[in-house]
């Protein structure tokens, strides 16, 4: 049975049409941002130069694609329609089943749907892992930079230890099926996921310790929400059954946080050492503020500019790391639609078919590019102030 194909123009039009919820959401957000530009601070200033606009648009595109993935993707990313095996782009599924806009891979799955669903995996894991890495790096980097001395030597030695590990070796040791039989990933997760709770508890305690009415509410909220997520993620025993993570996803999550938190540590430590010589820190010390109050409420807010830029770059780098994991088939399930795994599968067959390889590569590249452009524009804007 011969397959029928759409023309190039029809494919482009069809793909643009499939993305309609994304265009709609982007139009609303961008219009609103332009309208309230003056009141939006640093974010509003991004719309002043071309690089910033390009970065914001690309990031929003992938963000909304991930949010509306189930509407945008015409097929289930795991569904196979045997007749479509290795079909070229624009192939029409017989009996009015729809169109494979970017063709099919060797297991007859829709490449377009897989690319769209893959964005969901990447956009959940990469920013979340980056946030945890920032929490861990900041909570350890603040005292290292502020106190100096022995605390600094020990923490810096540990950070350099992790940084001296080639990333790929770290992944091969930390993300293997065998290691999930041992308590190591759960132990590491238990340590890493504790940091946000410690961070917020200290944050609220130092600020509101003389105002018990606010303090108790905030502390209770932190411990209840943090504890709930903690129990769900580390022990997979969420009483409500909402927070859940597969053991292999927990494993890659932990590995990525482990690999990137020493980098954050170094940046935070350097910033703290720079900022602690300023006059307003001396003023706070003279007022008799506690060290942790100074670190969390005087130093950290003033270090936010470089940290935001670093966060953008780091999400991009984490995306690349996730792709590396997928490319080597570590951690993620073999049929997972994430971009790295898709690139691995397609790159083995480049001699015969190139169409399954291009959508995930271009998706990954454009998302990281968007984040890097955003970081560049943010850096330029924050340097102007």
């Amino acid at each position, binding site marked *: 049975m011969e397959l029928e194909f759409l023309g190039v123009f029809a494919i482009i039009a069809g793909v643009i049409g499939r993305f309609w919820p994304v265009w709609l959401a982007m139009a609303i957000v961008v219009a609103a941002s332009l309208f309230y530009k003056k009141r939006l601070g640093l974010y509003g200033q991004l719309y002043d130069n071309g*690089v910033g606009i390009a970065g914001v648009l690309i990031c929003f595109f992938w963000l909304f694609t991930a949010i509306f993935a189930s509407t945008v993707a015409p097929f289930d990313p795991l569904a196979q329609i045997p007749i479509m095996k290795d079909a070229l782009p624009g192939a029409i599924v017989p009996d009015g089943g729809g169109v494979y806009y970017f063709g099919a891979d060797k297991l007859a799955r829709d490449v377009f749907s897989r690319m769209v669903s893959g964005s969901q995996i990447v956009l959940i894991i990469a920013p979340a892992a980056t946030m945890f890495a920032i929490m861990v790096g900041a909570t350890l980097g603040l005292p290292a930079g502020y106190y100096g001395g022995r605390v600094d030597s020990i923490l810096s*030695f540990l950070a*350099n*230890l992790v940084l*001296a*590990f*080639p*990333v*790929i*070796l770290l992944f*091969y*040791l*930390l993300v*293997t*099926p*065998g*290691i999930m*039989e*041992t308590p*190591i990933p759960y132990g590491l997760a238990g340590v890493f996921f504790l940091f946000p709770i410690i961070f917020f508890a200290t944050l609220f305690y130092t600020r509101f310790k003389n105002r018990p009415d606010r303090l108790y509410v905030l502390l209770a909220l932190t411990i209840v929400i943090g504890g709930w997520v903690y129990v769900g993620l580390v022990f997979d025993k969420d009483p409500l059954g909402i927070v859940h993570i597969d053991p292999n996803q927990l494993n890659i999550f932990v590995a990525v946080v482990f690999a990137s938190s020493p980098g954050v540590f170094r940046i935070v430590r350097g910033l703290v050492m720079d900022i602690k010589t300023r006059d307003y820190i001396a003023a706070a010390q003279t007022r008799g503020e506690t060290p942790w109050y100074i670190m969390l409420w005087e130093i950290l807010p003033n270090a936010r500019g470089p940290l935001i830029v670093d966060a953008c770059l780091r999400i*991009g780098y984490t995306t*690349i790391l996730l*792709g*590396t994991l997928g*490319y*080597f088939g570590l951690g993620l399930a073999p049929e997972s639609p994430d971009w*790295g795994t898709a*690139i*691995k599968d*397609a*790159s083995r067959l*480049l*001699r015969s078919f*190139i169409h399954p*390889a*291009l959508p995930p*590569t271009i998706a*990954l*590249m454009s998302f*990281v*590019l968007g*984040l*890097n*452009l955003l970081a*560049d524009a943010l850096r330029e804007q924050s340097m102007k102030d």
Partner: protein
Amino acid sequence: MLAFILRRLGTMLATMVCLTMVVFFMVNLDPNLKKLAISQLDMRTPADQLESWLVKNGYRENFLVRYGQWIGVVKKQPNIDAATGEAKPRFAFCNEPAEPHYGGILQGNFGCSTKFKTTVSAKLWPGLGATGILMFWVMATMVPIALLIGILAGMREGTRLDRTLSVASIATTATPEYVSGVIFTVIFATWLGWLNGSAASATSQGVTFYNFTLPVMTMAVYGIGYIARMTRASMVEVMTQQYIRTARLKGLSFSSVVIKHALRNALIAPFTVIMLQFPWLLTGVVIVETMFRYQGFGFTLVEAAGNNDIDLLLGCSLVSVFVVLFTQLISDIGYAYLNPRIRVQ
């Protein structure tokens, strides 16, 4: 200067011991040992026989004793066959003396590779040599191009040339090896047919332009952007210095100011960055060698990790940790040497 180097060497040694211990621990985790025993015996061997094989071959000894044996500071006992009472090597393809001896890294004995059925040294050093060739060509293309882009962009900050080159270097840092490798293969091998999409023939028949350009290009592109951006930042900073203005006001031409006065000072920072690129290139080596089927160090590492080849993986880890720490040391010493302000202190 000597005290500085000695102190750095001391830290390096401590780091090395810590890291190898961690790697040794991770590689010898129980699930990995079980897999090794299964691969050496039979899929259907009962659990107690697997266990007795592990005990017999010394895998169940104390962790520190085994680590010491691997390093070569604790004596290795010969493997006595219970039936005949004679000493027998643990692996048939790997010689072992019949009396207790020191046989570890310090004696140059890296152990036996269960996957390739030979000694680790016989597999590791040729692989490193092959990777050395790849690294040489990557560095030889990446560094000059990156420095040129960085200098051109930083020479006149804010011009159209600067903005174009900056965006281009951002784009290359957003393209990891597995992405650019696929795109280059599609364009140059599948589509245009100019280059070979596999470097497998480079191992057997030697390196040619036809089979080696794609791997080198793929690895170089990811690094170029980063080095170029660092060079640009350093160049921009130098170009605002007083002595550059003085040189201009003296009436020197722009090109001679850039070449004679600015370049030398602008290249100190990129030197460190280039040295610190090596650990990063290591990941690239693994990806590129897997993608283009080039039998070098990265290929060996993937094979070792994928097949649970304990001694080979330990050897690979040792080499990569050593490369990372050694380049850090070189970059520190080189930075201190190049920068007079630090040298004097």
